[in-house]
C-alpha cells in the first residue's frame, strides 16, 4: 500500500471526488495555493479556477453560499482555514445549513462538506488552536467526523462528499504531516463506523484524532508493564457507532475517554453517558476522562503544553481505572 501523509490523503480524496463528480467544487480563503496546510495545493491545475475558488475573507458568504449552491445542485467543499473562524459564519452553519432540510419538511438536500482544520499546537494562540467539535455535535442536522489517520481522512472525506447531508470533517492540524498507509483502492470509510486501532484486553481507551496517537503511545508504554490497552477511534461522532464502542467495553470492563477539547460540555461527556447507558453493568471502575482544561488555548509554549492532553495523561487515567 502506498504511504502518504494526512494532508496528501485529503488532497487525493478531493481529486478523486472532483474527477468523479463535476458538481463538486472547493471554496475557501487561499485555497488555490493551498495555504496554510497544503491540502488543496495543485487542485487548480487540474480543475481550474471555476472549481477551486479563492474567496474573499468573508466567512459568512463562503459558508452561506455553499448552502445556496448545495440546495440548487452543486456539492461544495468548504475549507474553513482555521475552525476557530467558523464563529464568523455561525448563523450560516447552525441556523441555515443545519436546519434547512428539516424546516422545509425534507424539500431540499444539502450535500456539502465543511473541512475544519482545528486543534492545538505550535503556539497558534487563542484564535487558531481550539478544539471546537463539541459545538457542532450539539447542533442537530449536522454530521460530524474526525479522522486520525491518512486512510481514514481520505475515506471519510470521500464519504462526506457523497453524502446528501451536511458533513463537518475535523482535521487536526497537528496530524497533517503524519504518515500512514493509504489503500490503492477507493476505500470509502462509512460514517458511523468506529475502528479498533489497537487490540487489548484490560482497558478501552476511546479517543479521537490526535488523542488516538497519544492513546497508542500510552498503550505502548503500558504494554511494557503488562497492561494491554485497547484503543478505539469513533471516527465519526454523528452518527456514532455505539455498538463497536460498547463491544470493546464489554471485553475490557474499564474505560478511559480521551479528547483534546475542554472537559466541560464536551463530546467526551456525551460519550461517557453513552457508555453508561450501554454498559453500566459491565463497568468495573468509574469511567475516567482525559480532556483539555477549561481555558482558551494559550500562546506561550509552557502554557500551551499545560493545555495539551498527552500520552502521560492517558497513562495516568488508565492507572486510575485499574486501581
Amino acid at each position: 500500500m502506498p504511504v502518504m501523509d494526512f494532508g496528501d490523503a485529503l488532497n487525493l480524496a478531493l481529486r478523486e471526488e472532483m474527477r468523479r463528480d463535476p458538481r463538486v467544487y472547493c471554496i475557501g480563503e487561499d485555497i488555490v495555493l493551498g495555504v496554510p496546510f497544503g491540502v488543496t495545493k495543485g487542485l487548480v491545475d487540474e480543475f481550474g479556477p471555476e472549481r477551486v475558488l479563492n474567496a474573499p475573507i468573508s466567512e459568512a458568504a463562503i459558508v452561506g453560499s455553499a448552502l445556496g449552491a448545495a440546495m440548487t445542485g452543486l456539492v461544495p467543499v468548504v475549507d474553513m482555514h482555521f475552525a476557530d473562524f467558523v464563529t464568523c459564519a455561525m448563523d450560516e452553519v447552525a441556523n441555515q445549513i443545519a436546519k434547512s432540510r428539516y424546516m422545509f419538511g425534507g424539500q431540499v438536500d444539502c450535500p456539502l462538506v465543511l473541512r475544519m482544520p482545528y486543534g492545538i499546537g505550535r503556539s497558534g494562540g487563542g484564535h487558531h488552536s481550539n478544539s471546537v467539535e463539541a459545538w457542532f455535535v450539539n447542533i442537530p442536522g449536522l454530521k460530524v467526523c474526525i479522522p486520525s489517520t491518512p486512510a481514514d481522512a481520505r475515506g471519510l472525506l470521500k464519504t462526506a462528499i457523497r453524502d446528501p447531508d451536511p458533513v463537518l470533517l475535523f482535521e487536526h492540524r497537528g496530524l497533517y504531516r503524519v504518515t500512514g498507509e493509504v489503500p490503492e483502492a477507493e476505500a470509502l470509510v462509512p460514517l458511523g463506523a468506529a475502528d479498533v486501532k489497537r487490540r487489548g484486553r484490560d482497558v478501552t481507551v476511546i479517543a479521537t484524532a490526535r488523542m488516538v496517537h497519544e492513546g497508542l503511545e500510552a498503550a505502548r508504554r503500558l504494554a511494557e508493564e503488562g497492561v494491554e490497552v485497547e484503543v478505539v477511534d469513533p471516527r465519526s461522532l454523528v452518527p456514532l457507532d455505539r455498538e463497536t464502542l460498547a463491544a470493546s467495553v464489554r471485553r475490557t470492563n474499564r474505560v478511559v475517554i480521551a479528547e483534546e477539547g475542554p472537559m466541560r460540555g464536551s463530546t467526551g461527556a456525551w460519550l461517557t453517558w453513552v457508555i453508561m447507558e450501554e454498559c453500566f453493568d459491565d463497568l468495573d471502575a468509574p469511567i475516567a476522562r482525559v480532556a483539555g482544561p477549561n481555558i482558551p488555548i494559550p500562546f506561550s509554549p509552557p502554557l500551551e503544553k499545560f493545555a495539551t492532553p498527552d500520552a502521560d495523561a492517558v497513562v495516568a487515567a488508565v492507572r486510575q481505572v485499574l486501581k
Partner: protein
Amino acid sequence: MYAGMLRVRLFEERVRELFAGGRIPGFLHTSVGQEAVAVGACAALRPDDYVLSTHRGHGHLVAKGGSLGGLMAELYGKANGICHGKGGTMHIADASVGYLGANGVLASGCVLAPGVGLSIRQRKSGQVVLTFFGDGAANRGPFHEGVNLAALWKLPVVFLCENNRWASTTAGALSAAGGSIARRAAGYGIPGDSVDGNDVLAVHDAVSRAVARARAGEGPSLVEAHTIRWVGHFEGDPQVYRGKDEVAEGRRTDPIARLEQTLRARALLDDAGARRIRDGITAEIDAAVAHAEASPLPEARDALTDLFAYYPWRD
C-alpha cells in the same frame, strides 16, 4: 399584477383575521401595504428563477406562485403544510416554485444568494436568483459579504431591499448610515436603483433591468424599493413608536388602488371586472382556509423525520 397584488393583500388580511381568531400559532409578520414590491419583483422573474425571502415572506411566496393551500396549511402547522409543519410562517420554502426559503435570521439570504448564483452559472441554466431583505437587515454583515461576493464574481443575483421605513421599532434613519441603501451599491461597483415601492410598474421596471443584466452575465444589482408597512411589525404590535399619519399616508399611496385607477382610466378595468377578480381570489383563499382547517395536525413522532436525507443509524 393587479390580481397578483390583490391576492397578496386578501391573503394577508385573511391570515391576520385567522391569527386574531387563534387559528394560527406563532408570531406573525404580514406585508399588508407592501404588495407592489413582492408582485412587481416576482413578475419580472421566470417561473424557474429562484427567490430567497425574509421573515415577512408570505407575499413573496404568493407572488412567486406558491400554492395558497400548502402555504395556509403550513401557517396552521398542519401535517400537509408545504413543510409538513416543520417551518411555519418565518421558515417556509416551496422548492417547486423556486422559493428557497423565508428566513428567521435577517440578511441570511444575502449570503445564500451568491451560492445559488454559482450553481446557476455552473449548470448554465440561465436562471436568476432574487433575494429580498429589509432596510434593517441591510445593516448586518452578511448583506455586505453577499453583495461583495456576487459583484466580485459577477453572479446572476438581484438584491432587493424592501424599505418599509422601520426595523421593528427602530426607524431606518436611526440605523442606516449614509441615508440610502441603494447608494451602497456604488461601493461595490454595481447599479443601485431607488424606486417608489408603492408603484408596481416602477418596481417591475427596475427589477426587470436588474434581471436582464443578471441573465446577460453582467452581474448583480441592488434595488431599493420604498414602501410603507400599514400594520404592526408583528400582529399585536401596539406601534407606540410611530404616528397614525404614517399609516394614513400608506393608505393614500395604496399600490393596489393606484394601479386600479390607472387601469380604469385606460378602460382596462371596470366595476364588473374588478368584482370578478376579487371574487375569484376570495374563492381561492376560502378554499385554502378550508384545506388548512380540514388538514390533520402532525403526529408528535413526525418531529423526528426530515433531519437528514440519509440516516445510516438509528438515533
